[in-house]
């Protein structure tokens, strides 16, 4: 019973589609997350998808809807409490702790199978319906559209906030918009790999890509490619090795990409550096 056997079932096809959709969104936001040093925000919003999902289960028997609404609330809270970069990490920590406490409290009132709630923590990729695929796809399109629209000013504001502001870019507003995009993307991804492992799609591929190129556009493409390869590759591997959970294999693949990129990366960037610096130093000393 290998890959070919599983692929004839709708649950396996849905899983592959969902993983593909989610990996694209994650690969897309990853470079911005790293440039803006917001990895902890990813971690915070993803774990709080658990609280949102439990609330969604209780109120409307709809964990994904609850998680999405919860993500928007969390993004707004981080935006309000963590306006200064220096206090952002601590406020995320505060919100994360309070939110998880609330999640555990709410879980006490839930009388369904506890596994339904635990799926949120570790991902439930084989339980995805075609209507959920549609929802995930629409979210991914929205995320891609918003990011495309704000791409240049967001990159400018992320890399070079002072000059961006001097050029009239509304850096604060862009930061809030990105926070919402991030929260929605992360919640979406939590359905696949689980809230605990979201970083493996939203951070690891982008971190690997940064080791391989300094061109922001190439980095984004590499980040998406590695996220997709890890997500769908991990799934296919799990069909072959049915005893291992797919999220474990997804994490393992993306980590492997990162290790390879770190090993290969220095050679790539330092060669470029080498070629470039010598003539300029000569010029400086002449001047």
């Amino acid at each position, binding site marked *: 019973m290998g890959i070919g056997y599983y692929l004839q079932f709708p649950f396996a096809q849905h899983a592959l589609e969902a993983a593909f959709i989610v990996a694209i969104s994650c690969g897309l936001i990853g470079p911005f997350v790293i440039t803006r040093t917001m990895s902890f925000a990813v971690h915070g919003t993803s774990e709080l998808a658990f609280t949102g999902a439990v609330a969604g289960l209780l109120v409307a028997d709809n964990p994904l809807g609850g998680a999405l609404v919860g993500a928007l609330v969390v993004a707004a809270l981080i935006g309000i409490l963590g306006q200064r970069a220096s206090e952002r990490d601590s406020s995320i920590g505060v919100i994360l702790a309070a939110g998880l406490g609330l999640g555990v409290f709410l879980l006490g009132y839930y009388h369904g199978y506890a596994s339904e709630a635990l799926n949120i923590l570790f991902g439930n990729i084989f339980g995805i319906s075609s209507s959920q695929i549609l929802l995930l796809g629409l979210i991914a399109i929205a995320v891609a559209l918003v990011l495309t629209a704000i*791409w240049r*000013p967001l990159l*400018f504001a992320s890399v070079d906030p002072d000059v*961006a502001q*001097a050029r*009239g870019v509304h850096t604060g507003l862009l930061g809030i918009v990105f926070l919402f995009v991030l929260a929605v993307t992360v919640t979406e991804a939590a359905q696949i790999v689980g809230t605990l492992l979201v970083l493996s799609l939203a951070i690891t591929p982008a971190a690997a890509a940064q*080791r391989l190129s300094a061109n922001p556009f190439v980095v984004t493409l590499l980040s998406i490619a590695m996220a997709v390869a890890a997500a769908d590759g991990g799934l296919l591997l799990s069909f072959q090795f049915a005893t291992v959970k797919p999220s474990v294999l997804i994490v393992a693949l993306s980590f492997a990409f990162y290790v390879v990129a770190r090993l290969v990366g220095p050679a790539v*960037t330092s060669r470029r550096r080498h070629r470039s610096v010598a003539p300029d130093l000569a010029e400086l000393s002449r001047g």
Partner: protein
Amino acid sequence: MTGAAPPVELRGAAVRLGQRTLWSGLDLTVSEGEFLAVLGPNGTGKTTLLKVLLGLVPLSEGTVRLHGTPPRRGNPALGYMPQQQAFDRTLPIRGRDLVRFGVDGHRWGLPRHLRATRRRVDNALAAVGAVSYADAPVGLLSGGEQQRLRIAQALLGDPAVLLCDEPLLALDLASQRAVTRLIDERRRTAGTPVVFVTHEVNPVLPYVDRILYLVRGRWAIGAPAEILTSERLSALYGIGVDVVKVRDRYLVVSAEDELPTEPGAHAHHERGHAH
């Protein structure tokens, strides 16, 4: 644009942040081709003056005009050059990407791969001698290299006024000289006035036409030889200050050791490097 309204004009201008008055009653006119150095201790509102011109901070009193029009956010007539930054080594931004922000970084949407844009960026890189490291990640560049890119970035918009906020900070002497010369070149060839905020007047002294010296709400404007005297600075600081001129360099020394970070402090710093 010459002849009509001056590039920068402030009349009776004041900025208050909360209870605190940074400066008030400021009258200042910067002419075409003029190099104005803005000096003063930390926290006296030097950077705030630039922010007023950039339309990021409103005046509490008085008026400000740039070529006759009030400041506004995102004014393309202004070039802005910040101090050197510590970019992360793995930041996925090359020298040319940083420069390109000067063309279209503030516009919506994805960057478009236009040949014309690329040529403009290439020309700007060549003008500051940065072609050789244009494709290197900015996190691997030296302060001097980075600041050359900043000049290219600021000049790409073909600014009518150049605003510089401590662009020489933490640069070695050779880079300070190279960067200042590039800024001055723009001023000479295009007549672009320069408002140059700095801690240290000596590296820019050969180019400076006038100095605006801000100290705790008080200010003085004039040619370097008028302002950098023991009498004027003692009056501004309200304490005894000695200005000593040594080999075309001004050293500002206070008996009371009370000039926070001000020229006295880098007189020290300068000595370490000057040989």
